[in-house]
């Protein structure tokens, strides 16, 4: 698309953003005196929670995806669409919603206590798992549902004409598909959960429920032990890279799923028991996913009118950070929307935001007060973290445009500028709007690197919600969380809608 020089500059800046901070972290880690028992504990907990989160997400996703694949009902399309929503949902908002349902004074405990059921504890490993399943069950379901809908209808028809029983059908048709897809879904979720920070920060913590990311944060924020933070960062990089490479090897499914709004007709699923089982899975999953969101809205409405200046100021910071990240991410993504560019962008998944943040902290520190640059660093890191997703969205369309119109461009002798302005950007506007919306929403809801750097004057809205929760001002936290939810979804909608305005390309 763009002249080669622009692509090279974009690539070099991304490479620099990876190598610079990682080098700074590795160099700093040399001063480390040794792993403490708490560090080993964090290492073990990171692996255990990621394994269990992936296992539970996939285990629940299989029956849910099967139910969605073979049942048609009113609202099915909406439910499947909502399965994509947790991706852009701010973690802190989801946590508040989960607390409202599963917390000490949550709906569930209030409902169960008169029955004499012991109180549910949300904090600790179980809380981390509930939150991770909340975020990743939809992802796993979409991946596996895609596999189910990908089975040719003729296979079920053939099985029906052969009089195959349910077991035979499972063994011959469904199990081979699952054997192919489930390891990939497990690996993707495992990698995502390895870098879990905001969930561990809010629902974990303490020596028994600290992830490596959280340990990095604690070394920086509480002990200001840069060497320890750096060495934990190196371990985190090694872990994420190894897991990422394994995930790439075993993953055989595209993340962007199309056509999930249809269902596959079956001839073997009319039994009343099967209908009941499928209905139960669908209802339970819908309740699990929607009740926390409903609680955020219900609890937040009252607090919206009494947010206070500091919350609005944080909201302003978040909007600026989100817009900055979106602009930077698109500036990177447009020239890198190629095969090799997408490979480069994968570093955004492999490298944890906190490690990147610490590296940038170490680089900036000799020249300026890093805390003054908190919002800039946050915007940069958020752009980098969103890059692989935006490239995944842009690249197929960008390649199609180049393939379809490259010769016409040549025949007309269009300059790089004319090509970009008149052809590439207008034709790319839909995925561009979607990618921009995704970046803005992810950045808006991010509670990662900002927690490392920010002082109260520079808090973003997610951090503000976290601070309000920490101060037990739950009404205000609920109001701020609802504001955050509205802003995140609003940003996503605005950009996505913007990409759809004008004549269809």
């Amino acid at each position, binding site marked *: 698309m763009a002249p080669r020089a622009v692509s090279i500059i974009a690539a070099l800046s991304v490479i620099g953003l990876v190598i610079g901070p990682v080098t700074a972290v590795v160099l700093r880690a040399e001063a480390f005196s040794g792993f403490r028992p708490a560090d080993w504990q964090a290492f073990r907990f990171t692996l255990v929670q990621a394994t269990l989160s992936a296992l539970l997400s996939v285990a629940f996703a299989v029956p849910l995806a099967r139910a969605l694949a073979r049942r048609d009902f009113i609202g099915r399309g909406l439910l499947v669409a909502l399965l994509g929503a947790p991706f852009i949902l701010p973690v802190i908002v989801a946590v508040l919603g989960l607390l409202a349902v599963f917390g000490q004074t949550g709906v569930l405990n209030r409902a169960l206590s008169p029955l004499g059921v012991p109180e549910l504890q949300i904090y600790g490993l179980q809380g981390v798992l509930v939150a991770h399943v909340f975020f990743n069950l939809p992802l796993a379901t979409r991946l596996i549902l895609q596999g189910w809908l990908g089975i040719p209808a003729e296979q079920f028809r053939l099985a029906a004409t052969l009089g195959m029983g349910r077991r035979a059908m499972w063994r011959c048709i469904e199990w081979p598909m699952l054997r192919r897809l489930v390891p990939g879904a497990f690996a993707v979720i495992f990698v995502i959960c390895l870098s879990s920070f905001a969930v561990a920060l809010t629902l974990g913590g303490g020596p028994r429920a600290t992830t490596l990311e959280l340990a990095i944060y604690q070394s920086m924020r509480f002990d200001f032990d840069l060497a320890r933070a750096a060495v934990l960062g190196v371990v985190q990089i090694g872990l994420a890279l190894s897991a990422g490479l394994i995930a790439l090897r075993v993953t055989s499914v595209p993340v962007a799923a199309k056509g999930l709004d249809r269902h596959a007709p079956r001839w073997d699923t009319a039994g009343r028991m099967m209908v009941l089982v499928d209905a139960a899975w669908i209802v339970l999953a819908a309740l699990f996913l929607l009740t926390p969101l409903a609680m955020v809205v219900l609890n937040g409405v009252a607090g919206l009118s009494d947010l206070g200046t500091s919350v609005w100021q944080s909201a302003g910071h978040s909007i600026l950070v989100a817009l900055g990240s979106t602009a930077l991410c698109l500036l990177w993504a447009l020239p890198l929307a190629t095969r090799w560019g997408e490979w480069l962008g994968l570093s955004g998944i492999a490298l944890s935001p906190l490690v990147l943040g610490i590296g940038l902290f170490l680089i900036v520190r000799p020249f300026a007060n890093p805390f003054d640059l908190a919002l800039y660093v946050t915007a940069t890191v958020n752009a980098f973290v969103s890059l692989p997703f935006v490239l995944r969205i842009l690249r197929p369309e960008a390649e199609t445009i180049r393939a379809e119109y490259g010769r*016409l461009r040549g025949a007309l*002798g269009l300059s790089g500028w004319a090509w970009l302005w008149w052809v590439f950007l207008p034709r790319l506007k839909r995925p561009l709007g979607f990618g921009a919306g995704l970046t803005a929403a992810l950045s808006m809801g991010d509670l990662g690197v900002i927690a490392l750097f920010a002082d109260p004057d520079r808090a973003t809205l997610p951090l503000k919600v976290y601070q309000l929760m920490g101060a037990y001002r739950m009404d205000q936290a609920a109001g701020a969380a609802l504001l955050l939810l509205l802003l995140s979804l609003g940003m996503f909608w605005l950009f996505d809608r913007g990409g759809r305005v004008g004549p269809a390309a």
Partner: protein
Amino acid sequence: MALQLDSILACAGDFELAADLTVPEADRVAVVGASGSGKSTLLDVIAGFRLPERGTVRWAGRDITRLPPGTRPVSILFQDTNLFPHLTIRQNLSLALNPATGRRRPGDAERIDAVLERVGLAGFGGRYLAEMSGGQQSRAALARVLIQARPVVLLDEPFAALGPALKDQMLDLVAEIAEAEGLTVLLVSHDPDDAKRFARTVIVVEAGQVTAPRDTAALFDNPPPGLRAYLGGG
């Protein structure tokens, strides 16, 4: 002035195309041959989309072999994708006139209107391709070629998707314009009737070998063995 291909050798994988021929200025030439014989490769070499391994392409004696497609005295109509569907016809023509910026300059509007009128699309400038019929789309594509005002025009089966009557109409229109403007036109077609209707001379491409242009009527009266096999005459 003439279009000359001197000792051209172009390779596409294992396929080799050899051409050594001269097309006089203002000639209308049909390029015929079986699928995969190398017709499109020949046009790609002339248009600049493929650099030959050997040989020279000249126009009016000037070596244009290494010029990029956009700066050659050549414009080309592809089988499809001849205009950008998200731009209006007027914007497409404007872009063809000013490929550096796409911005319209004084006098462009009049030129665009004149070209649209020439192809029978007066008043269609504000439309998108999707708002036009197949025949109108072909005329708009032809307008793009005309506004580029280059002396050599290559037609790579651009009217193949049209019905017989519309296709004949378009060929007649191209012939009429070529005659009036003194354009040198090379038309690739699978249909011998297109060649007979449109071309004064015919180039036969057979298994990578390109013959020199021969008079259309004479060629089809007494086709060489390769062409006879292609035409179904055994």
